């Protein structure tokens, strides 16, 4: 079968040192700091108060907004504080602090269910109540995505197992270790979406994951593994649709549902599966720890609310010359200046690099080589938009469709003049949005 892909993209060195390391569960934190906002959308209001006893898996925050996802206690114990705490997003956000009593007493409403007994609507409700969000990084509430279209039919559900970011091996390990549960979750999502086809896109550098998922699918003709070229950003929603659906493009400014497909991450499917099979809300996530600045590496199953510093300590601790921390993958991740931030639902990796590897580049003039244009998977002109943004010409940036940028960072990665193209484009997008909202 042909290996599929999209136009553009880059080939960052795909170092995946932790690909062969099985997932190891870290002991729950003594004190869990659980932010009330771990998703895109409205932050949750706390449902508990200081002094309350909470059980593991108990809902501690929820919101009436449609686009939001509840948060749950990841440990059992006493609520000792509800206050703003540092958050990986950059600003302090309200968090519920739970002192762990070490008993892991399960909440009463956690009961396993069977998919066959459930209707699509019930599956959506369970997904919402379990606080499942997109684990590919964006943390968009999954229940919103599972609502079937009002008219017509969804052609297919595409599960994203590309994991095109260097270093990260979370999805890879989950597909190798728990393919049956992932397929279970995928079937539940198909039932909710009322679609009868599911494609699972996996880059060909993960032959063990491809084999494991194929085996789990068995003879089910409604599900199919699609082998994808190893290229960045193969795991970006729109690019994945183009690759899997043989060239169909998601129109500018639209979502993939416009062309009849819904995209979700494989780890998200697993979370949906767990919410049904085990009745367990999303209170544990797998993070990859890697990079030259940390002693040891691996994939760790971590309760939400665990401090990043504890995870790093468990992995082996920082090296003396550690200089840069990246939250997520090296291409799209966010640099952090402290490890005193809690693991949130959609955390995918903590990468640490040493001084030798962190280079502060001088920004040089554009030499008009056009490499950014060649690699842009959204067919934009990053150089033009970048220059317009630098000169504060927001209308020019808008005319060149800065809004269609998927922020993959391929342009900045290939630029020989080391121009921070993506940052300029992001600034332009912000300015355009600010202007639209008045």
């Amino acid at each position: 079968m042909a290996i599929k892909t999209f136009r553009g993209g880059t080939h960052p060195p795909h170092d995946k040192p932790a690909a062969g390391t099985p997932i190891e569960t870290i002991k729950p934190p003594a004190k869990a700091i659980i932010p009330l906002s771990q998703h895109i959308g409205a932050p949750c209001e706390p449902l508990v108060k200081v002094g309350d006893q909470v059980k593991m898996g108990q809902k501690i925050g929820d919101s009436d907004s449609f686009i939001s996802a509840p948060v749950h206690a990841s440990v059992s114990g006493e609520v000792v504080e509800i206050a703003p705490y540092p958050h990986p997003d950059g600003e302090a956000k309200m968090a519920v602090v739970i002192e762990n009593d070490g008993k892991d007493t399960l909440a009463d409403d956690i009961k396993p269910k069977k998919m066959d007994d459930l209707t699509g609507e019930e599956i959506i409700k369970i997904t919402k109540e379990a606080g499942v969000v997109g684990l590919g990084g964006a943390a968009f509430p999954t229940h919103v995505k599972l609502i079937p279209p009002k008219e017509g039919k969804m052609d297919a559900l595409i599960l994203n197992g590309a994991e095109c970011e260097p270093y990260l091996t979370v999805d890879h390990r989950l597909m190798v270790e728990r393919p049956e549960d992932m397929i279970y979750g995928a079937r539940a999502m198909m039932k909710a979406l009322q679609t009868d086809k599911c494609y699972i896109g996996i880059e060909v550098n993960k032959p063990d994951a491809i084999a494991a998922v194929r085996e789990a699918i068995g003879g089910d003709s409604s599900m199919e593994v699609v082998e994808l070229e190893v290229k960045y950003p193969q795991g970006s929603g729109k690019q994945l649709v183009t690759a899997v659906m043989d060239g169909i493009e998601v129109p500018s400014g639209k979502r993939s549902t416009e062309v009849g497909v819904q995209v979700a991450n494989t780890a998200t499917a697993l979370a949906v599966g767990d919410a049904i099979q085990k009745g367990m809300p999303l209170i544990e996530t797998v993070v990859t720890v890697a990079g030259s600045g940390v002693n040891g590496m691996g994939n760790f199953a971590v309760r939400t609310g665990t401090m990043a510093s504890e995870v790093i300590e468990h992995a082996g601790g920082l090296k003396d010359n550690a200089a840069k921390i990246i939250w997520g993958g090296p291409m799209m991740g966010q640099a952090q200046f402290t490890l005193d931030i809690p693991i949130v639902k959609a955390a995918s990796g903590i990468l640490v690099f040493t001084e030798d590897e962190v280079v502060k580049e001088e920004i040089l003039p554009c030499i008009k080589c056009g490499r950014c244009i060649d690699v842009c998977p959204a067919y934009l002109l990053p150089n033009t938009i970048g220059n317009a943004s630098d000169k504060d010409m927001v209308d020019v940036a808008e005319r060149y469709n800065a809004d269609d940028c998927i922020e993959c960072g391929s342009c900045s990665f290939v630029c020989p003049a080391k121009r921070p193209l993506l940052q300029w484009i992001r600034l332009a997008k912000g300015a355009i949005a600010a202007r639209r909202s008045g």
Partner: protein
Amino acid sequence: MIESIISLALLGIVFGAALAFASIKFAVEEDPKVEAIKDVVPGANCGACGLAGCSTFAEMVVKGEADVAACIPGGADVAGDIADIMGMPKPEEGVSYIAQVKCVGFGDTAKDSFVYDGVPNCTAASEFFGGFKDCQYGCLGLGTCAQVCPFDAITMEKDKPVVDPELCKACNKCVELCPRSVISLVTYNPEAYAVLCNSRDKGKQTKAFCQVGCIGCGACAKVCEDEAVTMEKGKLATIDPEKCTSCAKCVEKCPRPIIFGPS
């Protein structure tokens, strides 16, 4: 030869007559006042008057839709000239303003929490954790104010923006753009003292972040006989340049080197 000279001369006469006729018949009445006002305004198109540019401003003044004193960079002089052109009484001489950078914490004085490596622009830098300084109120020193100033009144002395009082027209552009709101417009009084700090953190925190920042102790307010100091209790003191009589008593009392006098 002669025929061509005559025909060209005739053509010239005909076209010349046509043009002369057209210039009288289709003349556009332009108020000479508009031109006159355009000549007296600074012509930087800075937009401080709230209009699209100096030409628009001139037209609006003549139409009576803009105030003769609306040109902020022009100040009292230009307002007077415009009033003369319009045949209106001269507006009363108002106070003049100047942009003031309320931060002196640079280099080793104020600590950075991390190294920023990206677009050298304060707005861009402040999108990452609010900026790379421990103090969330201090100047980031990437010079966005200097870039935006239409009068080249702000120069960067290393990381520190310095306002030239001769050139600053108080157009407010830097004030609007500064993501940290470190710059504000104050009454121009070259003799006044000023607390050059913007930190609204509590004193203890300011002390941890910055070696010079105002800790809001209030010693200056107590010693000031002119009631020129307003206190944000425990956070920040501000000296009103209109009331300051340059007695410098506050400088002696201040436990931190943050009150600056006429330089």
